[in-house]
């Protein structure tokens, strides 16, 4: 008997007692649904973390004024004395530093000829783009001369560009930011959302302009520190140990900021990539644990399937005897019951997947996380369900196949 025919008669057998089939499938349904939700959450977190790592770069260090505790929480960040441009050039002298830029940001009320838009203006040096791995897709980035001269030029992030120039002709136009006329010389590549856990911020909603121009004309200077910058971003040379670079930067900044030995740093050197990796490892462990729990429920479901298949074999002993009498081999009977178990579990798997899909969608909505249901997850969930059917269906099927034809026929 061909597998197709076996599948048809299996489906008939299952639909002849739908309630029992459904109850039997329940374990599989729950198992598959949870495997799917767990894997999707895990995959989603992983993808998000990978995207973050690639967007910040693995060898970028971030200097912020103010101390930071180990958990990465900012304690009064920004209240400490800000950095200045002398710090930037001092860091630029270091052998392991590939590029360095200072940044300064503030709120920007941008007005184009067509509309207005409230966004963030970010001041940076000409190295800003390479440090952040953030090229212009249209136009050009600003030069060091323009930074020195405080030129009123800027690049727009995609979101800012679209909102200020709905017709898409931003390049070469003028906008006014907090009343300052600025020429658009470029459009930046799309970066997408940042951060996780629903705290995402649209990083494309930004105006990037020369540091000095932003300080002098848009955000204003600092009362105590001239030529101040709020953050410093350092691109460490390829092949240089980032952790070591982190330590060396801390030593130099302690000297420059005259921190007494033993006193707490009044700044922090943050390795975002490293923090993200640590978070990734935690997320990985968590999703492994959850997937394992889900797998346990699949096994419990499998035991339920085995139980009901044994009942079914007993109930249908006469039928088995008859099938043998008209010429079914043991293998035919084995196949019939095995296919029945696999169909039962696969059907349960499909229902579980539908429920899992809803679960993943709900999670994505609530947590504002990306909804990630990859073909691999679907294949894993369905494959797991079918395997459970195969493994737990084998024993009852073999029992059916080994029945003695005459005893089976006489059974009542």
């Amino acid at each position: 008997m061909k597998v197709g025919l076996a599948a048809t008669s299996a489906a008939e057998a299952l639909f002849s007692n739908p309630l029992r089939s459904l109850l039997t499938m329940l374990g599989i349904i729950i198992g598959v649904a949870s495997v799917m939700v767990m894997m999707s959450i895990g995959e989603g977190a992983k993808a998000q973390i990978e995207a973050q790592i690639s967007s910040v770069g693995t060898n970028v260090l971030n200097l912020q004024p103010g101390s930071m505790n180990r958990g990465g929480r900012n304690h009064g960040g920004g209240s400490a004395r800000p950095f200045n441009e002398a710090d930037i050039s001092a860091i630029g002298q270091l052998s392991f530093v590939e590029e360095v830029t200072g940044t300064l940001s503030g709120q920007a009320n941008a007005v184009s000829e067509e509309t207005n838009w409230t966004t963030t203006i970010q001041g940076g040096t000409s190295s800003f783009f390479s440090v952040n791995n953030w090229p212009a897709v249209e136009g050009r980035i600003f030069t060091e001369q323009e930074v020195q001269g405080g030129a009123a030029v800027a690049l727009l992030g995609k979101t800012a560009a679209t909102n200020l120039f709905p017709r898409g002709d931003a390049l070469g136009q003028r906008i006014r930011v907090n009343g300052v006329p600025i020429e658009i010389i470029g459009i930046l590549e799309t970066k997408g959302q940042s951060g996780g856990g629903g705290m995402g911020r649209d990083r494309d909603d930004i105006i990037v302009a020369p540091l000095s121009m932003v300080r002098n004309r848009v955000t204003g200077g600092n009362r105590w520190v001239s030529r101040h910058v709020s953050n410093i971003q350092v691109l460490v040379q390829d092949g240089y140990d980032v952790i070591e670079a982190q330590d060396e930067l801390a030593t130099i900044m302690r000297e420059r900021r005259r921190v007494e030995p033993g006193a707490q740093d009044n700044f922090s050197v943050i390795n975002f990539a490293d923090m993200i990796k640590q978070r990734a490892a935690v997320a990985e462990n968590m999703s492994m644990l959850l997937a394992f729990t889900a797998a346990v429920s699949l096994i419990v479901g499998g035991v339920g399937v085995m139980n009901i298949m044994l009942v079914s074999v007993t109930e249908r002993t006469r039928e088995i005897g008859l099938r043998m009498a008209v010429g079914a081999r043991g293998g035919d009977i084995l196949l019939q019951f095995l296919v029945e178990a696999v169909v039962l579990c696969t059907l349960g798997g499909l229902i579980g997947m539908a429920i899992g899909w809803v679960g993943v969608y709900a999670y994505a909505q609530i947590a504002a996380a990306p909804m990630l249901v990859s073909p691999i997850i679907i294949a894993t969930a369905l494959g797991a369900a079918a395997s459970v059917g195969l493994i737990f269906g084998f024993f009852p099927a073999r029992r059916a196949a080994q029945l003695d034809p005459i005893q089976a026929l006489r059974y009542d």
Partner: protein
Amino acid sequence: MTTTQAIISCRNLTKVYRMGDQEVRALDGVDLDIHEGEFVAIMGPSGSGKSSLMNLIGALDRPTSGEMWINGRALSEMSRDELADLRNETLGFVFQQFNLLARQDAFQNVRLPLRYARKDIGDMDARAKECLELVGLGTRMDHRPMQLSGGQQQRVAIARALSNRPRILLADEPTGALDSKTTVEIMHLMQDLNRQGITVVVITHENEVAEYARRQIHFRDGKIETDSAHPELKRASGG
């Protein structure tokens, strides 16, 4: 008596059942030859061994000792799968309780043996339809057993037995669950099939049923008591 001519041949066939610590000799050294095209009734009171003989001839059970041949092949040398194939290709069964699959309609029931056929048998559906028409149920193909009368159910069972074009039809009390009018119909059908060349073996304890057969064999205590084809035998077992 030679084994080559007979389609069913038994030599010194013995079947012993164990019931607790008692041994029951259901068949006790039976020698029997049934030739192609015969219509044989096997009779005897319950416990005489006729059902045990039926199970052995039907390749559903194995003897305790002795040998039997069907179609020239010794059953003792055949594996479980080979016996299944033999049942599928050479034998057709009709049971007292019909043994139809309740969830499937007449057509699907008749098609069942074809699904287990190892050889290519062409259009299964046409074959099943043909068999149902042969037993006069061409218009009831989509009826389930519950929707059919006892006689009709037994006709479906006969159609099922015929679907693989068997050379031997084995019927175990085929009219046991039927009224006398239906019994006549079923036995006439058996006679028709026999005329078409199928060897028919009917097990029964009713004389009226046995009279349709051309040869009657009586069993008692696991042995052949009388055989109408061999009137010289009287409680002989050696032949």
